[in-house]
């Protein structure tokens, strides 16, 4: 090998090493053969290592050029050797996977495997079932809609035009523009399903919409994904008195407190008029509901805005009604006495086990806090 260094200046020996190493790599069909090639080339006594060591003996005027050529070759060979390793590993894995065959048509085992943690229902799922049971008893049906919504369903149809200040409060997540040039949004509330319901169903309507909602906000009291339940009642003679009655009935049933104080305060939402925020009585210090001097805001509501009705083709001279929306995490937390929102979505088995509901006991109307 030292001979080669002295007999050539054009780098023929380098080219030969490259060719021969590549051929040897191609011929190596398993990782053992591959490793032999690697050692023979890059190892302490490898051919390339020898050439590098021999550089010192090259005449000074050629050394620079040859040094550069050797470094290039080294980089090339290292890359080729590494690439082959990946190929062979891939092939070995593929072979292993081919060998690991299971007849998937075999009948499954007759019982579920044992688990370290007992199974259970998540507090969100449980709360949705509870409120479905209560509103169901009041004649409501569940309506649904997509999480990825059009701008129109989420905002425009709900009387929140492009530059409305309320849009700023919504911290909307956007997706890239679709074929119509408009950006779909992750729904910021369940209210777009009001629109979908009014467009597909003739009144009278009594619908609730439990579902996922998204806002670009993340801290101890805000999660980028959370859940709301929307309510919509449309009929000929529904008044604000019914709104109050319905929500008082719901809140007292949900929390199981027959005399739970409920307060209605004037507010503003673009899609209702008059609009109201609803508070329940509690003791801020102890967290006890129904007792004490403090008020806790729990939901927003109002009479459906005539523009929203008209946007959906309903004549406000004929049809009127109310809508409301509340956070499911919030009412679940109040009912269970939880203080932190974040663990809801972290799937920590210890938390899930602590707050789980028994899958075999569906909610009844009789239970409360």
């Amino acid at each position, binding site marked *: 090998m030292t001979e080669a260094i002295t007999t050539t200046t054009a780098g023929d020996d380098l080219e030969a090493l490259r060719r021969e190493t590549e051929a040897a790599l191609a011929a190596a069909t398993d990782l053992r053969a591959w490793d032999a090639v690697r050692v023979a080339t890059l190892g302490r006594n490898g051919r390339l290592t020898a050439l590098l060591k021999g550089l010192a003996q090259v005449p000074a005027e050629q050394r620079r050029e040859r040094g550069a050529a050797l470094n290039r070759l080294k980089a090339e060979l290292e890359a080729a050797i590494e690439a082959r390793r990946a190929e062979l590993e891939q092939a070995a894995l593929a072979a292993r*996977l081919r060998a690991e065959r299971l007849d998937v048509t075999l009948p499954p085992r007759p019982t579920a495997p044992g688990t*370290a943690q007992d199974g259970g229902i998540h507090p969100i799922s449980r709360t949705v079932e509870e409120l479905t049971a209560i509103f169901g008893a009041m004649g409501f049906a569940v309506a649904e809609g997509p999480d990825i919504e059009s701008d129109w369903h989420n905002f425009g149809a709900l009387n929140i035009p492009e530059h409305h200040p309320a849009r700023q409060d919504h911290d909307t997540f956007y997706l890239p523009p679709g074929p119509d040039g408009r950006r779909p949004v992750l729904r910021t509330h369940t209210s777009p399903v009001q629109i979908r319901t009014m467009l597909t169903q003739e009144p009278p309507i009594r619908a609730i919409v439990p579902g996922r909602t998204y806002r670009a906000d993340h801290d101890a009291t805000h999660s980028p994904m959370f859940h709301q339940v929307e309510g919509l009642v449309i009929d000929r003679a529904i008044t604000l008195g019914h709104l109050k009655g319905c929500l008082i009935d719901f809140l007292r049933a949900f929390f199981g407190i027959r005399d739970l104080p409920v307060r209605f305060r004037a507010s503003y939402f673009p899609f209702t008029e008059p609009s109201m925020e609803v508070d329940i009585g509690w003791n801020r210090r102890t967290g006890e509901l129904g007792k004490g001097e403090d008020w806790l805001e729990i939901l927003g509501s109002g009479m459906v805005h005539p523009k929203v009705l008209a*946007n959906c*083709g309903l004549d406000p001279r004929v049809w009127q009604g109310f809508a409301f929306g509340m956070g499911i995490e919030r009412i679940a937390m109040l009912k269970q006495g939880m203080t932190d929102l974040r663990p809801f979505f972290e799937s920590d088995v210890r938390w899930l086990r602590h707050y789980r509901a028994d899958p075999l006991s569906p909610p009844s109307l009789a239970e409360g806090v």
Partner: protein
Amino acid sequence: MRFTLSWLRRHLDTDAPLARITGTLSAIGLEVEGVEDRAAPLAPFRIARVVEAVPHPNADRLRVCKVDAGEGRIVEVVCGAPNARTGMKAVFAPPGSFIPGTGITLKVGEIRGVRSNGMLLSAREMGLGEDHTGIVELPEEAPVGESYARWAGLDDPVIEIGVTPNRGDALGVRGIARDLAAAGLGTLRPWRPEPVPARFASPLRWEIADPRACTWVLGRALRGLSNGPSPKWLQDQLTAIGLRPINALVDVTNWFTYDLGRPLHVFDVRKVKGGVLTMRMAREGERLVALNGREYVLTAEDGVIADAAGAEALGGIIGGEHTGCDEHTTEAFIECALFDPVRIALSGRRHDIRTDARARFERGVDPALMPPALEAATRMMLELCGGEASEVVAAGAEPAWRRSATLRFRRLAEFGGAEVPPEEAVAVLERLGFAVERRDAESVTVAVPSWRNDIAQPGALDQAPGLPAERARAAAEGCAEIEPECDLIEEVLRIRGLDRVPPVSLPLASPVPPPALTPRQARTALARRVLAARGMLDCVSFGFLDSRLAALFGEAPAALRLENPIASDLDQMRPTPLASLLLAARRNAARGFGDVALAEVGGGYRDPTPEGQREIAAGVRVGATPRHWAEPSRRMDAMDAKGDAFALLAALGVPMPALTVTADAPGFYHPGRSGVVRQGKQALATFGEIHPQVLAALDLPGPAVGFEVFLDAIPEPKRRRRGPPDLPPFQPVRRDFAFLVDETVPAEAVLRAARAADRALISDVILFDRYAGERVPPGKVSLAIQVTLQPREATLTDTQIEAVADKVVQAVAKATGAVLRA
């Protein structure tokens, strides 16, 4: 919006206590977000004179002060402040008082042998700032013995309310006072500013070069001013609401911004170039150094106020530094203008400038208030700074803001649910500033006051595209008729008290309500229950995850990538909840809980259309079964996932015998240990072991198995009445067969062939053993089945049984090449 109680009382003549005022504010839609009583923690502190301050006998840095706090006696206090000296006025805290800045309750103590009967306070000790270089020094006129808080103007509670986007008028104290007066909490004091006579011709005039920039503007020059600090009352009020007093001219504009909700601006006349202030759109790239010290690069969509030198203010948002008033200003020019709310909102957002002016203009300000507000501001500036005023110069014109609305009294009950006597309804509206135009027994028509741009304001509808024309037109007509009335009903109910609307339970349309859930919807909850009953924990995960991880589960299309994720690892709508569950399993493994069984019923996203968002029930099992005396621990395998999927499909009413399993599961599964469950061609579920490369990428120690059931793909079970049961009187016969087949033959093929061998007699076939190993040839597997024969007409004879057995052997052999094991 912040204001103080005394400020409110400038406009509202009331003796209502604070609690009633705040309660009413919240009830009528001006939600109180906080009440700050700054005087409470300062209550024990009195103004005192240091009669004598002498060096402490035993300490160089301390002084012994004889203090007169107006209690008729002199007390001795040891004080470490370098500025404590004879004759000064200071703030004295008697023993027993709580010192907010240190959190300590003061006791009589002895400091280096001298008794100290109280304390002289620094600003920091009172919680009023950071200054702790010495004790607070009060001016000579401060009265000894007086409460410090009262003397300092801190005994004025600060009220903060949240103002909703529709109530620009409540961004002024007067608007708030008006609402409270309407709600019965006193009377609104009259406010009619005396006009200030014009003494000279204004050196500046207005020009509106572009009506997009401004539609109406008034201005007035003042000269002979001597600008300087504002008087104490004005500084106190501004400080109380969190504004920094600057100088009298600027303070007056800020004060009116809060007092009337009317933003104003003052230019220093001598800094304005060219004698004309022009309302125009900015030139693209034009620069403005604003009063906040920042430089803004403007766009052609920003409206500016310009002089000969260029843009001098971002109209309605922020003034410019170059032309602002300072303590040297002797000639000023007041700007009182009207700007387009949308343009203000957009400009403010574009440059991220939040000012009190922007907050008001983007909600809309009272156009009719402009002339009187200018008079009032002129008067106050002259009172504070001396000097005289010019004529009023104007450009543009007052916009048409007059509108009417009609309320039919019966609608208060029919819509609002409250029986309100017509007189009462009209009185509420009048107190709010509505003027009665026409009234009869059925209805009243009122003129909307100039400050309520949220009432009877026609706005464009945004109707659904596909509505039939006739229906859309009728709805739009109805809206135009109903909306203004709705606005008035809201005003009456809100001011009268929503608590006075009696609640009415919803009447039931039928005594037994129809089910709340359709059969399809009911499956979601059922799926959760089935999986939880199989020991899985129901999870709820974010709908988005890391796009790089999403790519492991198939495509991560750009159409499902968030444009504004809150974190780079939450940027892609997930293809399947299975991905979220594997991530959750990894988090649990990191906490020391490696063996988990998790399930989620939720969205999986293929594309942004409603159809591309599927409801998927997914589950994962990771690790091994628990150790138990009765059952050894074993690793999870694909059959566990298949068991979950099949249990769920069965519970959802899928006809199980019709299902087939194909081996073309998605690439995130182990290719040899996974399957797709199909009904005909339709894929209902996938299951299998998770691909080792996916586990490696997720850094999740295996084994891990999982499944997905596509709830939307599962047809609703048909409700069929069951026929009579099959209860033959003859005992069934069970026979076992062991077949040797190629290991590639699916067990299902053997079972299917055996079942089909004699459909009349064979009622059931089960696989009870599968063996591959030394006792069978390589490449072969032994499958043992039990066939149940159910005779219907007579007990089977041995010959009959043998005949069926032959049929089974032949059928299985024909279908799969199996041979009966010897």
